[in-house]
């Protein structure tokens, strides 16, 4: 009798010293980067892959794509959630294997929504709102550098983001319109989530990690105006979704960012 055994290709196992790089947590990192980094951390925890978080002032420049976060695994460097998901899949770890094609397409669509709406809104508020840019974004972004380089780099980043906003048609939006867009995005997410624990029933997928990363960061970050956080808090199932993921996967995180403090 022949027995056919499928042996997965000998990919290198996940090393102990895998590292995730992001800007300095206390003084430098901004809302959008923090959200993206938390999304990747949540995803890796959901996969059961250990990763050490290292903060470096030049993390943005170290990244091969210029975006945060990036991970250093073995001798490979991968940045941003999309490529990181592909990378872990190649190593045999995946959260969306159980989905059929329709569900997978749906998942991709919702991830696009989060990136196009939530992430863009975060960038808009950080850099296109003059008050936030002057009080929070520019001082934090430039904090590791000395004069006059700090001012030059901060303004350079601001111009770059504003140019990008103009290119995608957000240049003329007001803050109110952006808050509305965020509300609508959360409405769509809330409806899809319903009363389920995760977006695709029992098991979390990369979509859950992405949504958690952004919503949790927005709720727990102090901006010049608390309006954005309030809009999200209006959706109770999203709040309990965030709390659930925090309690399941981030029990060891420090107490002062615990969700219960803000609800």
């Amino acid at each position, binding site marked *: 009798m022949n027995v056919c055994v499928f042996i997965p290709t000998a990919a290198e196992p996940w090393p102990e010293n895998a590292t995730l790089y992001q800007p300095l947590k206390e003084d430098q990192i901004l809302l959008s980067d923090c959200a993206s980094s938390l999304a990747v951390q949540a995803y890796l925890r959901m996969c059961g892959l250990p990763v050490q978080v290292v903060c470096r002032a030049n993390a943005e*420049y170290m990244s091969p794509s210029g975006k945060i976060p990036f991970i250093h695994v073995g001798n490979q460097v991968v940045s941003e959630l999309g490529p990181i998901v592909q990378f872990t899949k190649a190593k045999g770890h995946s959260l969306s294997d159980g989905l059929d094609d329709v569900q997978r397409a749906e998942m991709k669509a919702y991830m696009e929504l989060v990136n196009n709406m939530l992430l863009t809104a975060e960038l808009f508020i950080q850099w296109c709102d003059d008050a936030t840019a002057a009080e929070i974004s520019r001082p934090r972004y430039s904090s590791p*550098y000395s004069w006059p380089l700090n001012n030059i780099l901060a303004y350079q980043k601001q111009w770059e983001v504003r140019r990008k906003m103009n290119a995608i048609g957000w240049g003329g939006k007001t803050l109110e319109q952006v808050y509305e867009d965020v509300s609508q995005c959360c409405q769509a997410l809330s409806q899809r989530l319903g009363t389920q624990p995760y977006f695709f029933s029992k098991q979390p997928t990369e979509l859950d990690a992405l949504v958690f990363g952004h919503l949790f960061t927005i709720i727990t970050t102090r901006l010049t105006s608390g309006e954005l956080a309030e809009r999200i808090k209006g959706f109770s199932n999203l709040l309990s979704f965030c709390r659930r993921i925090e309690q399941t996967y981030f029990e060891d995180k420090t107490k002062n960012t615990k969700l219960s403090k803000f609800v």
Partner: protein
Amino acid sequence: ALSELHFNMLHIDGLGRTKEDLLTYEIADVFRAKSLIDVMKKSHEARQKLLRLGIFRKVEVLIDTSRGEGALPNGLDVTFEVTELRRLTGSYNTMVGNNEGSMVLGLKLPNALGRAEKLTFQFSYGTKETSYGLSFFKPQPGNFEPFPSICTNQTLKWEGVWRELGCLARTPSFAIRKESGHTLKSSLSHAMVIDTRNSSILPRRGGLLRIHQELAGFTGGDVSFLKEDFEIQLNKSLFWDSVLSASLWSGLVLPIGDKPTSIADRFYLGGPTSIRGFSMYSVGPQSEGDYLGGEAYWAGGLHLYTPLPFRPAKGGFGDLFRTHFFLNAGNLCNLNYGEGPKAHLKKLAECVRWSYGLGVLLRLGNIARLELNYCIPMGVQSGDRICDGVQFGAGIRFL
């Protein structure tokens, strides 16, 4: 009667923004002249000194007998007529260096505050490196008493440099990746040069001593270090028109504070202008084939220069060529503080890289030289990249 002179007047005409006290130092010697011939000689020397300041386009000397009211018998009037350089000059150059080409735009204020201070701004855009530089240079009258007859030169310089480091390769080593980003260096540097050679490219006699220190971080900026480097070269003519030359280079960079040194501030070793027989900057600490430089180094060279065998085209073109036999050696390492200077010296003495060989040189003007050598590298450590056999080099400063 001619031997007894009185100075009536010493004029300087044509001064605009230049301060007089700067010039009185340079022309003070003229007052010590005892005879007419002496006056002419010292005036000529003073004219050279004024031109060397780099702030005048033209300097003319006029010596005449005193005239007019209050004129003394045997009195002389010496007039220096100077034409100052324009307040702001611009320049545009293209440069070809080691496997890289660049375009350099410069703006210079040659006499910024009236005492021959030079303020230059330079923008360089190249195939490998883009840089902006602002430098301020204030000359000191080289009043170095112990060596009155030797040509000394001291310079004090402040430099502000914005550096952006990025990875050129798609997959650089992580050690290189960690150095990416922006840094601002604000440093004060002092250099002292004593040069008694008859030429800077293929000297036949004399020596060179150059001591340079740089202190970064105390006038702002992101990087803090103290850098020392020195260069010494001795030349001696031997029989049959040959020259024996020995040189030694050494340097040290000490970071101040807890940040480690940046890759842009460390020393590199190896290459046709340094230890021949090794690839460019390919000696010392490295990570996955990318060289990281070192915080301390020494390098020495011993050369025997001879004219081309059988002296073809003697007296003409052939004089631009030389053959040389060389011996180069050196080492580069990082400093692991807490081990003390003795341990570092020991490390620099271990695993010395060296090479020997011979080659042909071509002198280009009085600034550069080309070399084609056959090199045999020795003492190669794992990680070094060698270039044994034929190696070509072009540059202005060779070991």
